[in-house]
C-alpha cells in the first residue's frame, strides 16, 4: 500500500513560493536601515570635517601649539589662545565627576541592593527625572537661586577656613569653577546612576548569595561580590558623565564668570570652551568665528574620545560578565 507523503516543496519551489512575497519587504527594510545608519555616520563625519576645514586658518595663523597653549584671547587683535578654556573645561568636568560620581554610585547601590522593589522603582523614576530638566533651567536656577543662596555662602566658608591653600583661595565672587562643577555634578547623577544600576543588575544573584552564605554583612557582600565585577562598568558610566560635563554649554556660560584666565583656586571665575563659543559667536566677525570653530574642533575631539572610550569599556565589561556568567 502506498502512503501518500505530504508534499514538501523542493528547495527551488520554496524559493519561488515562500520567499517571493517576503523578499521585497525584506529588501526595503534592509535598505531603509542601512540608509538611516549611514546618514547618521555621514552627518557626524561631515560635521567634524567641515568644522575642521572652516577653522583651518586659525590653526595656521596661531600655530597648532600656539592655539592650544595660548593664554590670551583678543579677537580685536587677532590673538586666539585656547588654554584658559581647555583648563576651565577640564577643571569643571573633574569637579563634576569627583562630586557627582560617588553620589551616583551610592544612589545606584541603594536602589539595586538595599531598597525594597517598590521604593526602588519610584526613586529611580525621580532620579531619572533630573535628566529631563533642560540645562537652561539648571542655569537660570543656578544663577538666581542656587549660587546666591547656597553656593556663595559655601564658598565664603571654604575661603575663610581653607583659604590658606591655593585651591580655595578667595576672594569669592559666587561665579566660579566650583559653582559650575557642582551644578554639573547634579546634572550627571541621573546618567551615571542609571548606567551603574544596569551594571549592578548584571551581577549574578548567585554571587551575592554566595557572599552572604559565608557570613558577609551586606556592605561586605557589596564590596566582595558586586563592586569588583562592576568596576569597568562604573568606569564606563563615569566616562559618559564626563562626556556630558565636558560639553555642557549654557550652565557654564552663565555660572563660570567668563574670565579669560587660569586660576589654581576653584573659587575663582574662569571660562570653558562651550561657554566662550556660546557667548561670542553671535557678535563675532569672520576671523573670530573661525577661532570659535577651532575651539569646537578641540571640544569635538575631546568629547568623541571620551565617548568612544566609555562605550568600549562598557561593552567590554558587559561582554566579560556575560562570558563569565556562562
Amino acid at each position, binding site marked *: 500500500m502506498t502512503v501518500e507523503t505530504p508534499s514538501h516543496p523542493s528547495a527551488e519551489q520554496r524559493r519561488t513560493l515562500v520567499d517571493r512575497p517576503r523578499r521585497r519587504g525584506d529588501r526595503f527594510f534592509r535598505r531603509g536601515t542601512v540608509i538611516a545608519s549611514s546618514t547618521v555616520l555621514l552627518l557626524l563625519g561631515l560635521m567634524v570635517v567641515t568644522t575642521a576645514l572652516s577653522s583651518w586658518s586659525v590653526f595656521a595663523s596661531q600655530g597648532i601649539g600656539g592655539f592650544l597653549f595660548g593664554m*590670551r*584671547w*583678543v*579677537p*580685536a587683535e587677532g590673538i586666539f589662545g585656547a588654554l584658559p578654556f581647555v583648563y576651565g573645561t577640564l577643571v569643571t568636568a573633574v569637579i563634576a565627576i569627583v562630586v557627582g560620581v560617588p553620589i551616583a554610585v551610592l544612589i545606584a547601590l541603594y536602589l539595586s541592593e538595599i531598597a525594597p522593589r517598590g521604593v526602588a522603582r519610584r526613586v529611580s523614576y525621580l532620579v531619572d527625572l533630573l535628566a529631563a530638566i533642560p540645562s537652561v533651567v539648571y542655569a537660570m536656577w543656578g*544663577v*538666581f537661586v542656587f*549660587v*546666591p543662596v547656597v553656593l*556663595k555662602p559655601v564658598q565664603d566658608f571654604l575661603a575663610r577656613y581653607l583659604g590658606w591653600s591655593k585651591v580655595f583661595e578667595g*576672594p569669592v*565672587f*559666587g*561665579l566660579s569653577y566650583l559653582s559650575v562643577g557642582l551644578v554639573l555634578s547634579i546634572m550627571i547623577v541621573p546618567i551615571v546612576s542609571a548606567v551603574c544600576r544596569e551594571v549592578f543588575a548584571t551581577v549574578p544573584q548567585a554571587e551575592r548569595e554566595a557572599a552572604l552564605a559565608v557570613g558577609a554583612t551586606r556592605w561586605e557582600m557589596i564590596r566582595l561580590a558586586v563592586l569588583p565585577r562592576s568596576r569597568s562598568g562604573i568606569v564606563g558610566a563615569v566616562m559618559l558623565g564626563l562626556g556630558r560635563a565636558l560639553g555642557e554649554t549654557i550652565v557654564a*556660560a*552663565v555660572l563660570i*564668570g*567668563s*574670565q*579669560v584666565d587660569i586660576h589654581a583656586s576653584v573659587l575663582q*571665575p574662569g571660562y570653558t570652551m562651550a*561657554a566662550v563659543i556660546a*557667548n*561670542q559667536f*553671535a*557678535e*563675532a*566677525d*569672520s576671523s*573670530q568665528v573661525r577661532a570659535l570653530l577651532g575651539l569646537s574642533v578641540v571640544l569635538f575631539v575631546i568629547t568623541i574620545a571620551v565617548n568612544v572610550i566609555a562605550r568600549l569599556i562598557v561593552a567590554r565589561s558587559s561582554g566579560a560578565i556575560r562570558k563569565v556568567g556562562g
Partner: protein
Amino acid sequence: MFRRTGRAAAVVLALALVAVACGDDSTTTTTGAGTGTTSAALAGTLDGAGATFPAPIYLEWIGQYQAENPDVLVNYQSIGSGGGVTNFIGQTVDFGASDAFLTEDELTQASANGTVYHIPMVFGAVVPAYNLPGIEGLTLDCDALTGIFMGDITTWNDPAIAALNAGVDLPDQAIQVVHRSDGSGTTNTFTLYLDLCNAAWSAAVGHGKTVEWPVGVGGEGNEGVSAAIAQSVGSIGYVELAYAVQSGLSTTAMVNKSGNAIEASLASTSAAAEGVVFPDDLRFTLVNTDAPQGWPISSATWILAYGNMDPDKAVLLRSFLTWALTEGDATAESLDYAPIPDLLQQKALAFVDLIGNS
C-alpha cells in the same frame, strides 16, 4: 479583502478631510484696503536683523505699524549688532541694525553692494551700576571709572572716589568688577568711552564688542550683569539705561567732558547730541560728548539700508522708517529710549527718501 477595502476607504476619507481643510484658505484672505490713510494699500514682507539693544522699541513699532498696514509683515531678529552687519553685507536681510556704525572695512565691503545709508533711530545710554546698600547717588569721573575697570582702584574708599563724593561715607569694601561676557554693542559703547577719555585704557585695552578685560567677571547679557551685581556687595558693572531704570539698580552720575556731574536719563541722553555737527554720512558718536549737559556714555543705534534696494521692498521700508521717525517718539520714550533731535531727524528722513532711489 474586506479589511483591505476598509483601510483604503479610511485613507481616502482622511485625504478628503485634509483637502477640505486646506481648501478653506481661499475664503479667509483679507484685502485690508482702505483701512489707513495710505494712498495705496501697502503689502509685502521685510526682513531685518541686528542689534538687541533697540529690539524692544523696534518690535513695538513694528506691531503698531502693522496694525495700520495689515498687509505688511516686518520681521526683525535681534541677533546682535555683529550679526546684523554680517547679514547686511551678505544681503541676506532687507535691512540691518547696529549699535555701532560700520567700520571702514565693513563699509568698503558693504559699498560693493550699493550705496549704504546709516539711519539713526533712537539714542541709548550705558550707565555704571553698583551694589552698595544704603549709599545712593555716587558720582564718578572718567579717570576713576577707568581706574576701577583696570583694577588700579580696588576699594570703595579709595581717595580718587572719595574726592568726587564729598560727604559720603564710603566703606572699606573691595570693588568687584562685572562686565559683559557676550559680545555686545553695550560693551562697545562703554569701552569706547574709556578709550576716548583715558589714554592708559586706550593703550592697554582699546574698545570693541569684545575686549580683553584687565579684571572682573563676566555676566551674560544685561540680565547676567545685573544678577551678578545684585549678588555681591561692592560690585560695579555697566548696563543699558533702559535696563537700569526697569530693574532698579543704583547708578552713578558721571562727570562729563565739560566738568558737569550728569545723571543718566532720557533728557541727558538726548542732550548729548546738542551742538554736535553730524557728518554727512551720519556715522557719528555721542560718546564723550562736548555737550555741556550731555550724558557722556550715550550712543545712537542705526538701521542700515542700501540705496539700490528692490523698489517694491524699498517702498515698504521707506514707509516704515518714515512712520517710526515721525510718529514713534512717544512710544520710544515710554520704553526708556531717547528720541533723536529734530535736526538729526530731518537728515535721517532725507536718507530714508534715498532708499531704493539711488
